[in-house]
């Protein structure tokens, strides 16, 4: 590690090194689907080695933000940058190659139904590398072991797995190519508290094992408390007036929980407040 990079690094509260250099940047990004506006003028930086939690009400555009970051969607306005380089105008083939730096845990795990667990985890390796078969086998077993799954699940199809197991296989698949950046889309949604804790532990373990940058989209405040170095809260566009920023909070988890802004405190403490009346009226 160069002296420069050492000087540029802080340390996250999980012990990993956080660089001041943004790994991912969103510059005035907006996204519309047809006439429906999802994101407006989002500016965000994610630094190397940090774990950022992206929170907000359902439908405020968190998952869309994650897909924009991954380059799976193109922004309507603004630009997304990886290591200071814009994705605008880059060829799909180049993006496909660079996407291998990312691991993505999808909300429903998005395991390929027609493939076995082994084939799912090995997919990225088999598609993009010339690693020999026995080495692929070794890596798959290692990743499954890391996420606490026995080798006996290898021959099973995703339909035979429970929700928690699917999430863990999804995580093993996301980590198979040893990514530098891991994106987690609601990793604990739909899981019981114990399995949620297991997944949170795995996120922390991944961070401890290798220097990864992580973005966690979540509604789960326990996850935020446990894994996040920084919290960004998005607010639904439908509830904002013209000119207001959609990013209503950008700080540490501690600051988020101590905030007096009703939009933030109601969300992090799970209190509906006047939203209850609004929804009842609706």
């Amino acid at each position, binding site marked *: 590690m160069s002296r420069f990079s050492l000087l540029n690094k802080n340390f996250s509260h999980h012990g990993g090194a956080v660089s001041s250099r943004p790994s991912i940047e969103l510059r005035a990004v907006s996204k519309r689907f047809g006439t429906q506006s999802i994101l407006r003028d989002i500016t965000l930086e994610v630094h190397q080695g940090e774990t950022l939690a992206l929170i907000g009400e359902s439908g405020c555009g968190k998952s869309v933000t994650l897909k924009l970051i991954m380059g799976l969607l193109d922004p309507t306005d603004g630009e997304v940058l990886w290591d200071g380089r814009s994705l605008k105008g880059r060829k799909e083939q180049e993006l496909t190659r660079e996407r291998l730096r990312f691991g993505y845990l999808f909300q429903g795990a*998005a395991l390929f139904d027609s493939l076995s667990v082994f084939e799912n985890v090995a997919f990225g390796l088999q598609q993009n590398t010339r690693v020999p078969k026995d080495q692929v086998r070794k890596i798959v077993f290692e990743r499954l072991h890391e996420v606490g799954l026995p080798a006996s699940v290898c021959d099973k199809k995703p339909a035979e797995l429970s929700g928690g197991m699917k999430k863990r296989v999804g995580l093993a698949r996301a980590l198979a*190519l040893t990514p530098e950046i891991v994106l987690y889309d609601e990793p604990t949604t739909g899981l019981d508290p114990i399995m949620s804790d297991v997944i949170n532990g795995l996120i922390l373990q991944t961070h401890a094992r290798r220097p990864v940058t992580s973005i966690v989209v979540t509604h789960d405040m326990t996850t935020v408390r446990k894994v996040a170095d920084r919290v960004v809260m998005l607010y639904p566009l439908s509830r904002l007036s013209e000119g207001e920023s959609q990013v209503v909070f950008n700080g540490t988890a501690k600051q988020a929980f101590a905030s007096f802004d009703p939009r933030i405190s109601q969300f992090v403490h799970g209190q509906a407040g006047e939203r209850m009346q609004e929804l009842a009226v609706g």
Partner: protein
Amino acid sequence: MATMLISDLHDTWIHRIGRRMTCFIIVMGDLALFSIQMLGWMFRRWPCRSVLIPNMYQIGVRSLPVVMVTGVFIGMVLAVQGYDQFRLMRMETRLGAVINVSLVKELGPVLAATMLAGRVGSAMAAELGTMRVTEQIDALRALGASPIQYLVVPRFLACFLLIPMLTAVADGMGILGGWFLSTQVLGIKSFHYWFNAIDYVAAYDVISGVLKSIFFGAAIALIACHRGFHCGAGAEGVGRAATEAFVFSFVAILIIDFFLGMFLTTLYYVLWPAPVTIL
């Protein structure tokens, strides 16, 4: 007197037709780009055997029973419907010629393609649509694979390569069905049936039927995969994609059949001009 609002001016029948036409042009343009991308991937990276063979099995082998049954019954129906007309003219021995020419040139390819669109096209659209809805297509891209290369190219190749064989099977079964009913039930002598039938079916008829089927197979695969890739959200979206895949494929089959039929007939007369006769 009713007042007309400015917004009403934008919702006349002309506007609605305009919107539909615009939408149609956009979909056709998108389908064309999708096809070009698919062709690009097909020549850049051939799908591996482990992906291609299961698709060929699903599309080709598992379609055989339905294609065979359809072929046999169409042959028999043609015999039943044609027999009375031919008997009136005392030409029932020529029934085989009509059945075989109709099957080889038109009904065999069109029915095999229709069966393929119904059995395979809608299944492909539903499968790819479900993959889209459950983010599996995004997962493929996230894992460095091209969804078009991994999902569309093998399905296209399987349809494109196997539909001529399915057509040949449909033709063969139809010919057998027609022969069986004509000779075993309607009492036409087998020798006379084949004697006339062979005279009327030329190699060009067989080739033109098979050639048409290749275009049908390509259209079915492209339309079904395109609908699957552009499937709407939820179970309703998947269902709609499956229905659209069949309906659009069927319409495409008929349109292609008409234009190819015209083209191939013209080509025949260009290659083998009819002798000029003076009465």
